[in-house]
């Protein structure tokens, strides 16, 4: 259990890092950044994620029509 907690914090330290631009820079508190959901929010606010995803979904739709 302790090991799990430590490894969880290590991962979050790497992922969160206190630099959550795009999520809300006010979230700088160490206890708050130690949430896996912060990574999810960061990805959701990243335009580099949405453009390829939207292009992919459009591509799949077009492909269905072509077929």
């Amino acid at each position, binding site marked *: 259990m302790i090991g799990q907690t430590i490894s969880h914090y290590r*991962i979050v*330290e*790497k*992922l*969160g*890092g*206190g*630099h*959550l*631009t*795009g999520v809300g820079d006010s979230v700088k508190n160490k206890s708050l950044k130690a949430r896996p959901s912060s*990574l999810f929010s*960061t*990805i959701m606010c*990243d*335009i*580099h*994620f949405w*453009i*390829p*995803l939207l*292009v*992919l979904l459009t*591509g*799949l739709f*077009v*492909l269905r029509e*072509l*077929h």
Partner: protein
Amino acid sequence: MPSSRLRTLQALGVLCGFAAGAWLGGAEAPIKIVSAGVSPITVSLLMVAGVFLARWSIPAFVRGTSYVHQDVRQAPHLIIWAVLAGCLWAVANTMTIYAIRDVGLSIAFALWNTNSLLGILWGFLFFNELRQAGWKRWLGVLGGALAMFGGATLLAFASSTQASEGKATLGVIAGIGAGILWGTMYIPYRKAYLSGMNPLSFITFFTVGELATMTFLALSYRGAIPLWHEIVGARTMLFWLMFGGFVWVIGDLFQQYAAKYVGISRGVPLSNTNQLWGLLWGILVFHELRGGSQRVYAQVIGGSILMALGALAIALSSATGPEHSRWQDAAEREGKRYGIEESYVRASMEGREFDGGVSRRTVLDWLLVVGVTGIFVALAAVARLSRVDIDLRWAAVLSVAMLLLLVVCGIALWRTTRFC
């Protein structure tokens, strides 16, 4: 980064771009050996199966899976982008089949070759490429890409055998769609490499998206039972199709290193020289265009010269210090956004080993290498050549040229970056 190091990395990226062109173009050769009888979707699926095997065994052989594991732990969020890029590739590849069917290779190729122009746009918009580059470099890259686009169009017209009638609009949509999907695929590429991820790690997860999407598409379009019967019926061709995928992966790996060190605005057009290599294989080894008209040969020569000049212009327009510092800004932004260790990002940009990196090969790595080799040997044992009109001397010459590029580029990558 010292300017001498920057110049070395830029030259390495350009070399990787040219090697990528050779190997991506050469990948068409094994597929040309396979004659009709297998549906395009199944050809694509089998090729991707070969790609999957290569993408897991090559990184295991080069640096070991423990290295990949260590690397991914630095920026695990990038797995999402790697899988996303794989999905984009598979859908784009399937679209090209429809584009060729409906408008013919000549128009289709020109349409999806716009991917390099889109790559330049995304590179500029999102990753600070060509910022503070000066008008000469803008001219070199954009002019070079346009010249290559024109050359590719000429070559495609020359190498097209027939254009299908009807359904032209759908074919154009498919061709443009493939170009947009492939062009957008370079967003994940650049994001990963600016963040410090190693290309060997990226391709390992890229292929998961690739194989999953291709399997989904093949099952949806063909159905499980007919697909299985088709694969069993084509067992004598499996080796060539999967070997084509294997060769393609080596080219793609060089393309990834090119994207990493010279960016997508230069790396993508350079690796688009694959069309020249595909044409060389077609003309010299498979006797394509034999007995063609003078006009066709003029198109081939003109197109080849245009492509070569375009590639040369791009190769001579590598990034300078001010532009590179803008790349570093973009890298820093990514690092801050995802909390990636700064030294990891910097080490990757400088083509250095990150302190925490390990490259010990384990039993698992050797099992992967031996297993994949075994699969290819087994498939080769039952493989048959369905074409005999092949010029083996030219095949040997081109194969030696490709191997030379592999060795030269491989040694350069190892000495300069240790495959980082």
